[in-house]
């Protein structure tokens, strides 16, 4: 499986959809416009770090820091996927997939 922007974006869209009890979000759909709130945003980011976070606490915390700031600026799966790729964080890096 590839781990390009569209794959990471799809994973994030799926996590967001699950937090909202609906189907996956499209890459350019805004999580807050779709019914997300801060508490759900924190959940989604935690799951995202769990499934594709880099190993090691320090790098995971750096990713969390960037993701937290980003989701309140650009809450789309594509926007967050760019951050993950910039941190070399892709689904499966933590040894788990999004579906478990």
């Amino acid at each position, binding site marked *: 499986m590839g781990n390009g922007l569209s794959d990471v974006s799809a994973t994030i869209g799926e996590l967001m959809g699950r937090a909202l009890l609906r189907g996956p979000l499209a890459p350019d759909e805004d999580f807050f416009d779709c019914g997300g709130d801060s508490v759900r945003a924190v959940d989604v980011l935690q799951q995202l770090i769990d499934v594709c976070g880099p190993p090691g606490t320090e790098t995971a915390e750096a990713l969390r820091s960037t993701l*937290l700031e980003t989701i309140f600026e650009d809450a789309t799966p594509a926007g967050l996927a760019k951050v993950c790729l910039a941190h070399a964080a892709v689904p499966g890096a933590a040894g788990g997939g999004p579906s478990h």
Partner: protein
Amino acid sequence: MRPAEGRVIDGSGAASGGLLTELRRRRDERPHAAAIRTARQTGGDHLVTWAQLYDAARAVVAGAVALPPGAPVLVIVDNTPASAAALIGLTAAGVDVLPVEEGSSYLADLLAPARNPGVRTVVGPDGAAGTEPAGIDFLSYERCRADPVGAGGVPARRPGEVLQLTSGSAGEPKIVRHPVDNVRHGGHTYRQILGLTPADVLVAAVPLAHSFGLVGALAAAVVSGAGLRTMRRFQPGRVADALTEDATVLFGTPLLYRLLTPVLRRRATPARLRAAVSSGGPLAADLGERARAALGVPVCQFYGSTETGLISYQPDFAGGAPDPSVGVPAPGVRLRLVSVDPDGAPGVGHLSVRTPTLFHGYLGASGPVTTPDGFYDTGDLARIDTGGRLHLLGRKDTFVNVGGRKVNPTRVARVLGDHPGVRDVFVFGATDAGGEQRVQAAVVLGPGTGPAELAEHCRTRGLAPYEVPHEFHRLPRLPRTAMGKVDRQAVVAAVVPVPIGSEA
């Protein structure tokens, strides 16, 4: 029990005449200094000076002559300078205002014919037009202004009231009546406690529609001349930018500090920050420690309510030992503990307060809200320690506190109960591992109905995102007491392990 009492407010700089009089002084003193700066979502800011803010508020006073007399005006507050000018100008013109946060689900409820408390005009940002029912006028912030020269509008002899929504301890929300002078007085209390001067820059990471932001941030800035920074929508990056730049005092909720602390990892320690204030719910000790490390100052908890205004605050802005209390009484506040159990622990009881900013009653209700000697029963169970600090032991409220926003579970349950597939429902709050409360719904469902449909139903019915249950739990029936009431403890015990939807 000897009542504890805070210092008496010094009153210096206090003047009657509401916030407009104060605003005129700021205009006279420093017309070209920055008054309010609002971060735009797309970047950049919207900035007004004290002269511009005063002129805008004065034009609102002039424009108010065209409003239906006696009817309260609902103001959608988007935290911009224009929204602040509308609130200050309308109250100065004698109009009662009902501030509501942008995106609040109460907007539709309040304007529904059966519930409308007499509102005939909604004032808000341009984009908010078109949501109001027939018979209600919408005016943009700009369109409710008139040229003050020659328009005849003068500040009213009796300033308007500020009407504030409160979640209510049980059942339906209520509207609390405050003379605008309470807001002004409350602003002076914050000014005095925090030692605010024109050299300060306050950051409101909270909505100006609610009392903490309205009084602690907006009114305190207007009465002290401190600059105020606000944002349309909560963005931790913008808060962090303001802290790095020039902020001296930060107002936030515990959830704000939870979201901000990781973001601050990538920034320099705030250079000028000298006080961080948290209100809206209890701040967990471990979060307080992490936030203090990132901010360079301790996070001080302020405790109060919509009905009373500020009750107590932690005064050690510069540092000190971790403080498990909610601090000392605010200036002019008297505390009284009414013992619940004569054999109980000494110094423990239901907290009653007398505050200089006590509300004047609930809209549409009559009857006294205090004891004959002026004390209001908060319903909270509390203790006062030997050092005179107040400790909260239990809250009477049944609302769910989602990041400082009070969600009324009865109202959420009513919306869910309207869905044809829901046979029975009970809504309550549960605190997660991070210390945040989440909305939980225990539901008895008919065949073919699932949580996805219920979440969508809540959104379609206009509940705000934080009001839509974060977890749904399907039960074969709701446990009830012998009296027929839902047995809350039994529901909590039955549902908390596995929410439905999580296994989907």
